[in-house]
């Protein structure tokens, strides 16, 4: 059977339209239930709980890549719009943005954190792929250390391989004072969270200003060191973006687990006290 694959933009519009329609239907049913003296909070509550289960299934699907259950991309699209739908249903369900009791307030806060992290994930999943593609190289996250050490050892070889002339001593001295630490140390957490070019540009500038004091045959070495600085900077940028993507997934999934647990307790209590 032929598979019809819509363009990405069309898929997003279709997904958004379906989500808005679903929210409208749920709101109409809730209003009708309220008017008919039914239990709208029970209805929206079960809807929310079902949505949580469905949202959690994305993680299951990712762990079962061999099952013919549709592509992970499709699942992710469904996950994104279902999350949006769940946030809207939450507004219909909860009497206040943050509940009163400790359990309810915890549940509310965790739900809001999951929702906020979900929206953040939606944002970075839309923006980071293009940025990752723009950065040269495709290092695997688990091999970042290997690449980092390779760059460090190559730079060390270059610097230590220089003769002991007065001009080379300046370059060697610069390497040991500034470049060695740059290549050997992993980027700080602050830089990973908010990466910038300042350090890289400062090192490249210093190297460039030093070039006039070096003999002409050493300019190639300087350029190679500058290339290594740029590669290390690109590697750190890759690390920063991949780390954010991966950390967000961990935070989102951990919060989701806590949310599911609190929701189960909330459902049990609500059913217990609903009669």
């Amino acid at each position, binding site marked *: 059977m032929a598979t019809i694959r819509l363009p990405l933009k069309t898929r997003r519009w279709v997904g958004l339209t379906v989500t808005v329609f679903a929210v409208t239907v749920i709101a109409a049913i809730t209003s009708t*239930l*309220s*008017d*008919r*003296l*039914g239990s709208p909070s029970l209805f929206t509550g079960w809807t929310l709980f079902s949505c949580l289960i469905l949202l959690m299934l994305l993680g299951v699907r990712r762990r079962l890549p061999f099952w013919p259950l549709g592509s992970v991309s499709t699942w992710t699209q469904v996950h994104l719009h279902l999350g949006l739908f769940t946030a809207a249903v939450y507004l219909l369900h909860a*009497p*206040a943005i943050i*509940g*009163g*009791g*400790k*359990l*309810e307030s*915890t549940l509310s806060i965790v739900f809001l954190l999951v929702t906020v992290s979900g929206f953040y994930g939606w944002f970075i999943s839309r923006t980071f792929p293009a940025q990752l593609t723009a950065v040269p190289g495709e*290092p*695997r*996250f*688990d*091999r970042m*250390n*290997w*690449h980092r*050490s*390779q*760059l460090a050892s*190559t730079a060390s070889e*270059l610097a230590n391989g220089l003769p002991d002339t007065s001009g080379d001593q300046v370059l060697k001295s610069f390497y040991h004072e500034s470049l060695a630490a740059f290549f050997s140390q992993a980027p700080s957490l602050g830089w990973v969270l908010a990466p910038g070019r300042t350090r890289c540009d400062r090192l490249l500038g210093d190297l460039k200003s030093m070039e006039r004091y070096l003999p002409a045959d050493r300019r*190639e070495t300087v*350029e*190679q060191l*500058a*290339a*290594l600085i740029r*590669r290390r900077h690109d590697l750190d940028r890759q690390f920063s973006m991949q780390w954010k993507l*991966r950390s967000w*997934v*961990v935070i989102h*999934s*951990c919060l989701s*687990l*806590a949310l599911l*647990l*609190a929701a189960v*307790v909330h459902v*049990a*209590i*609500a059913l*217990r*006290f609903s*009669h």
Partner: protein
Amino acid sequence: MRHDDRELPPPPANDRPGDRWVLEQDGRRRLSWTGRRQRLTSACLLFAISGVALMLLVTPATTLFQPGDLSSPHAQILAGASAEQRCGACHQSATTSLTDWFRSGGSGHQGISSSERCMKCHHTTIPLGLAGTAHNLPIAVRDRLTKLAISERGRPAEWRPAVAMVDQNHLRCATCHQEHHGPTTSLTQLSNAQCQACHAAPFGSFAESHPTWDQWPYHRSGNIGFDHRTHHDQHFPRHHPAEAFDCRTCHANVRDHSTAISDLGSEPQRSPSYEVGCASCHEETLRAQVVDGITLLQLPTLPESVADQFGPWPPTAIGFTDGSLSPLVELLIRSDPTIAPLLRQIPNGDLAQLPRGTSRSNHTLGRIATSLRELMDDIADRGHRAIEDRLTRQGLAPPPFRPVLQGLPPQWIEATAKDWFQPVSDTPSPSPHEADQHHADQLPSRSTLANSRPSTEPTTDSSELLPEGSLLLDIGHDSGVDDALLDEGRLSGPADPLDPLAAAPATSAVDKTSVVPSELVNLGGWYRRDTVCDIRYRPAGHADPVLKAMIETFAQLSEGDPLKERFHANPVVQVCMNCHPAADAIPARWTSQRNGETLDRFTVFSHQPHLSVTPPEQHASGQQNSGQCNRCHQIASTEGGNAVGQFAPLGKDNCAACHVRGAAGEQCTTCHRYHIR
């Protein structure tokens, strides 16, 4: 690759995506991102489980589970309760432990719903048996009303579910009264759509689809029977020609008489007290109408052949069969099941209507005479208990009758029986007046105890014996309540032989033989007349406790009981019932309910917002509201007015002028109360 880039060796391919460990360059093993993520996730899950478990075990339930603040009334009631009691007041689940969730709570806890907990407090205003049915109506009544509504307004649209989402026979309180929405949310606030959730034939706008009415609010006559039309058209103009008929004289509101009705809030007073609103015109009439009093017991006149069979029988009660049984005495003697069938054969208790001379009639007369004698002897022997027992045997509650007994000494009954049934001596019988006067001396009524004894000391001041209303003795026999009784034409008439003034000499001294026994108790009380062998009670005036007790006792009889009809036909009783038609209810309602406290009605109305609002036509002309009652309550100008209130119909259009969306609103709950008692 740029020209200055150095070729770097590719990373080792000794791992796969998803591996928990990776080998470093130096051969050391290090956790991969996947491994770290799994560890972190497990730790988070463990932390979450521990946190929730800790919260459940350590945190008090009231702070742990709080779906929202309580409404103000419930919060105030439960303010001093412990945490468990606070939740457990409404939720059975709160009184059980976590382990009880997974096992049966035992037979004692089965079937206890939150609604039953509500009824622990609300049973005083909502009938327990009907608390779960829609509008607290019996199912049969509701079904009948539903059929009526469908026949009038048609079936609902097909798309609308015919059956409500709630079981109308087993409604929960929480279906409508949603708690935990904070102190500012009204528990009784319902939308029109919610009100109509159960209605098979829903309503549209008030002006277009609400059923019309023509009698509201006058069909509910109230507890006081007051004829507004005759007072407005006849009595008031005649007796107060210079004054305007002002509704607020009787129906004062807080703006006019704040001290008089301070406890009524801002609602107009439903009716004034008798002393304030009625006594000035009706006191004398009332005293005149009740001067004859009501008979407790009267010995019938028996033929000599019958009287001879029962030993001594008063000579004044021997002759042609005559006399009637008063409802009071018949009520007391019919507790004997053997005489009850005989009593039913006597038309209206009138013994004169029995066939004369037949053995059957003589037998009936003999049995009645025996019963009367036995009654008096029973009272003489056992006192008040004898009467209470006779009432109890007929299923009547004695307490309402006790005010009657408290003023009726058994020893006086014994003395009366002794006088009436003493053997006939050779001494000449006293004249009727002398006999009455002689025995009136022994009357231990309140009046005789309170006043001097007129038989031994001739009264020097006629005012002691002749009340102000004695001029009206001649109209005391008139059972009508028309206030025209006070008319001068009715007061002037031929001299009545029983009229003390007519019989009184011109001097200040009063001949004791000229005073009728009823005038000896002019302040009210028991008396007897030996001339006709009866025991009577003369009411003291308005709100006489003995007469009220009699009426409340007879109210316990069924509506079809001829004895009750005869009692109500008594002119003295009619005087009471004309103004107090609800006195026949159980419990008796002698006074009007205050506006706004009639919780048993389906409709609720507050005058205050209607008195302060400017009507549309006045608003258009720039006038301010004058707060006039007759804007809505107009006295009917024709005979075709309502039966009780005598007001022109107050139709739906009067209300619909303002009660539209965007103005006064058309919420169902504005005028209707859900719970009907």
